[in-house]
């Protein structure tokens, strides 16, 4: 390993002073090194990670539901196989992320419990129904497309297990977005009714993708009032100082809009925002700022679909209890190689 230098390891006896530990931690983050599970880390860093990874994991498994509802109604065996693979990946992403969260000392069962009891949330994006087959395409193209833009920088996030999980997730998301775009293109090249169905789905999924997948505005340029922007900016700054996030929400949102506009043009679809226009001076597309307060109010936890998502998740969990019990009983009986040894 040529050129490998001992980065910032303390050269004296192991540090026990909190200040030294913090300095060591900060130096690792500043040097772009990863923090690993057994490293010392500030409590705030651990809490922010648990909250973000858990929210992310919950979103992956709740996000299976709108598309999963179309598995039995896919228009061809090919589309059905693809959709099964895609929904299965989302379950896998949840599992990668719950594993990553567990390295921070939290228990997966406790996280699921918090989701079921409404103490932790999944992204409100998925509290929308998938009304037609075209919705499965619009969800994959737009919300998975937003996820890729959001998540690509997370492959370099400062916490090692999270970064490694995200690298696996991102590899699979690329397939999700492409199959969604392919599905939309098939509809756009089909009958007028099929194209209208595609346009209708885009009309309904554009705002959830552009608003909810990136979180609240955290810059005034992003359209937030000064107070909201300041609050958002403070959280984002903290997350960036710790190397958890790499960009502001609004920066990523702009990147998403810039990538989607030409894609929609190629499909011959219209994104439902009359303000979308190329801005020569900025070198970006303008779009309507997100009216976050109004939007969030319309999407409270008390909407029919928000309750439905959690109820479905709980039912699946409870219906599967006998499988978990049977697996534990089987393991306990097989000469102790699997079960909990006393």
């Amino acid at each position: 390993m040529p050129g490998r230098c001992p980065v910032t390891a303390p050269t004296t006896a192991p540090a026990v002073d909190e200040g030294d530990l913090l300095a060591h931690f900060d130096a690792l983050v500043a040097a772009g090194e990863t923090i690993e599970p057994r490293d010392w880390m500030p409590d705030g860093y651990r809490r922010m990670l648990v909250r973000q990874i858990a929210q992310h994991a919950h979103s992956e498994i709740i996000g299976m539901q709108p598309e999963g509802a179309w598995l039995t109604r896919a228009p061809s065996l090919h589309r059905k196989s693809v959709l099964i693979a895609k929904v299965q990946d989302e379950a896998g992403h949840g599992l990668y992320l719950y594993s990553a969260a567990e390295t921070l000392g939290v228990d997966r069962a406790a996280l699921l419990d918090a989701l079921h009891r409404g103490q932790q949330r999944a992204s409100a994006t998925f509290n929308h129904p998938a009304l037609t087959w075209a919705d499965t395409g619009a969800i994959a193209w737009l919300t998975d497309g937003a996820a890729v833009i959001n998540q690509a920088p997370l492959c370099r996030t400062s916490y090692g297990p999270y970064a490694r999980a995200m690298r696996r997730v991102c590899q699979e998301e690329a397939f999700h977005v492409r199959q969604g775009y392919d599905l939309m293109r098939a509809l756009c090249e089909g009958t007028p009714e099929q194209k209208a169905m595609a346009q209708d789905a885009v009309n309904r999924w554009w705002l959830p993708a552009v608003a909810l997948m990136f979180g609240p505005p955290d810059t005034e340029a992003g359209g937030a009032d000064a107070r909201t922007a300041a609050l958002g900016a403070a959280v984002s700054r903290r997350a960036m100082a710790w190397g958890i996030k790499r960009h502001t929400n609004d920066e990523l949102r702009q990147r998403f809009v810039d990538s989607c506009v030409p894609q929609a043009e190629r499909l011959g679809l219209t994104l439902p925002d009359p303000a979308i226009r190329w801005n020569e001076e900025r070198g970006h597309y303008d779009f309507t700022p997100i009216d976050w307060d109004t939007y969030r109010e319309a999407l409270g936890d008390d909407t029919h679909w928000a309750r439905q998502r959690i109820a479905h998740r709980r039912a699946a969990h409870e219906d599967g209890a006998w499988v978990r019990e049977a697996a534990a009983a089987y393991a306990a009986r097989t000469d102790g190689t699997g079960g909990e040894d006393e």
Partner: protein
Amino acid sequence: MSGTREGAPASWEVFLRSRRGLAHQHVGSVRAAGPDAALAAARDLYTRRGEPLSLWVVRSDAVHTASPDERDPYFAGARHKPYRYPEHFAPLTEKGPEGEHHE
């Protein structure tokens, strides 16, 4: 490692050899009640694509570690020994090590 609750499935570390000629590599972890279930979970989670050659699962609490916290003095033997690298010494040709590969 986090303690296991009564009746909770154990954590298993998953190692995958994805291609001939490679060593098994740690790819993540799964929760499962026993080794068969852990292998099945690892298969479903980590081998949905490609043609993986082999999987290992090892109970997480059976893995013994020496963490970076113990770098000093545990790993001290590796430090301050630049003479263990070829770069510490002069190359054998005028062109340096890169030249050797070309000709």
